[in-house]
């Protein structure tokens, strides 16, 4: 991817020839990317397609791209006059009639006159010799043979047609010109003029098939590179459109997204989902919410719309087959009050009939509203409302055009799609899904334990760290809520199972709590006992102190008694003056 981007950048600045020496840029947005540089240089590329599929435009556009980068080319017109080719080219912004255009592209009239008589077999030997001379003189490096079957049909023999096609191929290889040969796909049995398909596949170095068909009254164009000798290429079908700049592939996988990429995150309206997405959706990105019917895709979408309105951002909700009033009423039941936002004009709801009118008409209507409403957020519910084909879940070319237009206006687009569950889809979603969605949230019913619960998972979120967990989400009377995930040993628990799990856990917690309480009580009791013991000891201590005091007092009293007795004795011996006590010895000494 990074490689492609570098290439594209170089291309816009420098000549195509400097990008990749063995590739020739076609100037077709997206084509050079899917072929990693364009058509094989000096080789034969065959552009196959029925009338009106854009073969001529493909060829001319490649010459125009060359002329713009200073190369020259020859356009050999077998089917139309050079005047007519120029007139057709004038419908595009190619400036083919400018001096540069005239110098860069020579249109060679190769129409066989209608009055010509068929005198036998002929060949391209002379024509190729003349064209070789011309190419050398002009310094051309590319040549387009448009509608050569118109000439070869005169040969009337498939074998001869084949011989001339191989002659042409060999000539291109010899001259080193990059050749484009347009051809109509033919059935094996009617290959009168047109080269047989198998031969073309065999002789060409690169085969590009263009298809143009009607589906439900709408034109669908598809391009496919069915062969690219010796090179990796995307072989899938790519939708394309033809505008004033020419052919461009509308499949964003093939295009370098030139829209400025926003780093700002905006809320999905669901807190938990914002957390899962690392802050929310990127502003100006595209978000796809897929899921089976009834998985609350609309509720998710409205949740986003509601949050956007609260941020005072003009939001447009395009709903298919559901009237605005119906949406407002239904959403009120899960707590989204949309009516005030509708009244203030912040939220605009338009309802379209999916099977009335062409998708292009719907797109045109929405586009005109985008400008006038200054829409910041666009919600398409569901995007299959813009489908051309009944089995198209992602909308067709029209949807891609709208997404592209919205992106260039920096509008955040949230679309919903009725996709089967991701398990059957696998992660191998059709290329277009993952490419129209920067963020893809899938909603599903997970049935386990005899219950169907809604689950949500973020399948991808470009440029964001996101939670890979599958979550359960609930619709409550205050909107959409995502519950805590109960993930244990890789299992996600939902509904009753989750509840059971919770109850189990609660029991376990209770048991733990009870045992803790028990221990606490024991400890308390132990403490109380200790305290009681302490109290008893204190009483004992007090008793013993009291005892001690009593003993001391008694002893002093005894001593005094002894002294008195001694004094009595001394007094009686006549050695002491009466009234002088030996306990007051100091006085007695002083007296002595």
């Amino acid at each position, binding site marked *: 991817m990074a490689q492609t981007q570098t290439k594209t950048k170089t291309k816009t600045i420098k000549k195509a020839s400097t990008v990749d020496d063995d590739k020739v840029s076609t100037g077709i947005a997206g084509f050079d990317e899917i072929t990693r540089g364009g058509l094989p240089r000096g080789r034969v590329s065959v552009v196959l397609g029925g009338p009106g599929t854009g073969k001529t435009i493909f060829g001319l556009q490649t010459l125009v791209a060359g002329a713009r980068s200073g190369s020259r080319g020859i356009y050999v017109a077998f089917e139309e006059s050079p005047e007519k080719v120029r007139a057709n080219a004038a419908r595009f912004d190619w400036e083919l009639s400018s001096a540069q255009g005239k110098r860069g592209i020579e249109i060679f009239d190769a129409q*066989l006159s209608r009055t010509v008589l*068929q005198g036998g077999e002929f060949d391209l030997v002379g024509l190729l010799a003349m064209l070789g001379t011309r190419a050398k003189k002009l310094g051309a490096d590319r040549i387009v043979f448009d509608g050569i079957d118109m000439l070869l049909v005169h040969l009337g023999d498939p074998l001869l047609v084949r011989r001339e096609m191989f002659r042409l191929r060999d000539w291109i290889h010899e001259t080193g010109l990059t050749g484009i040969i347009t051809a109509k796909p033919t059935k094996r049995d009617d290959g009168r003029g047109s080269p047989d398909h198998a031969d073309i596949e065999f002789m060409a170095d690169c085969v590009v098939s263009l298809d143009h068909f009607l589906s439900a009254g709408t034109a669908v164009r598809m391009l496919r590179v069915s062969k690219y000798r010796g090179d990796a290429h995307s072989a899938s079908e790519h939708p394309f459109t033809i505008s004033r700049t020419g052919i461009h592939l509308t499949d964003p996988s093939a295009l370098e997204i030139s829209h400025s990429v926003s780093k700002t995150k905006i809320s999905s309206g669901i807190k938990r989902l914002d957390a899962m997405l690392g802050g929310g959706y990127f502003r100006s990105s595209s978000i796809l919410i897929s899921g089976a019917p009834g998985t609350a895709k609309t509720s998710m979408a409205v949740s986003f719309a509601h949050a956007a309105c609260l941020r005072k951002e003009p939001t447009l909700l395009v709903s298919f087959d559901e009237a605005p009033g119906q949406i407002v009423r239904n959403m009120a039941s899960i707590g989204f009050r949309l009516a005030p936002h509708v009244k203030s004009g912040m939220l605009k709801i338009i309802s379209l009939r999916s099977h009335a009118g062409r998708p292009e008409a719907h797109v045109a209507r929405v586009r005109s509203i985008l400008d006038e409403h200054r829409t910041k957020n666009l919600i398409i519910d569901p995007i299959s409302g813009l489908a051309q084909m009944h089995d198209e879940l992602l909308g067709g070319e029209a949807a891609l055009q709208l997404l592209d237009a919205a992106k260039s206006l920096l509008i955040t687009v949230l679309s919903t799609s009725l996709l089967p569950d991701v398990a059957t889809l696998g992660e191998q979603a059709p290329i277009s899904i993952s490419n129209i969605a920067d963020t893809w949230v899938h909603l599903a019913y997970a049935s386990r334990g005899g219950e169907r619960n809604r689950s949500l998972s973020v399948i991808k979120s470009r440029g964001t760290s996101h939670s890979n967990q599958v979550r359960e989400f609930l619709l409550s009377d205050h909107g959409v809520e995502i519950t805590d995930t109960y993930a244990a040993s890789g299992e996600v628990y939902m509904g009753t199972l989750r509840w059971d799990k919770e109850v189990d856990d609660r029991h376990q917690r209770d048991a733990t709590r009870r045992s803790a309480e028990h221990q606490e009580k024991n400890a308390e009791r132990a403490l109380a006992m200790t305290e009681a013991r302490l109290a008893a000891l204190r009483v004992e201590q007090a008793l013993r102190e009291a005892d001690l005091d009593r003993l001391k007092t008694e002893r002093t009293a005894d001593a005094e008694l002894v002294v008195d007795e001694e004094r009595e004795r001394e007094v009686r011996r006549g050695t002491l003056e009466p009234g002088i006590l030996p306990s007051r010895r100091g006085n007695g000494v002083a007296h002595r």
Partner: protein
Amino acid sequence: MSRGGLDPKAIRERTVLRLYVAGPAPNSQLARAHLKAFLGEHADRPVELEIIDVLANPERGLKDGILVTPTLVRLRPAPQQQVVGNLRNRAALAAGIGFPVIRAHHEK
């Protein structure tokens, strides 16, 4: 042409032919041979034939607006007429030049 057929002068008018060939390519060789044989059958008619090899002189072919080889162009009498191919088809050759088919026994 029908008028020319009726006018003796016109019948005798010089027929100017150009045969554009691509050197040794088989169809070009055949065209030369078939044309020479055909003209040999009409030796009494004044014919001016120029054979141009576009391999040797591609500019000439480009200038004259030649597309495939071989191509026989009858410049005169007017209108100009072209016959493409190796001229194996004598009916087409005769019609292109404006001469009648004299010996058509090996060509239906």
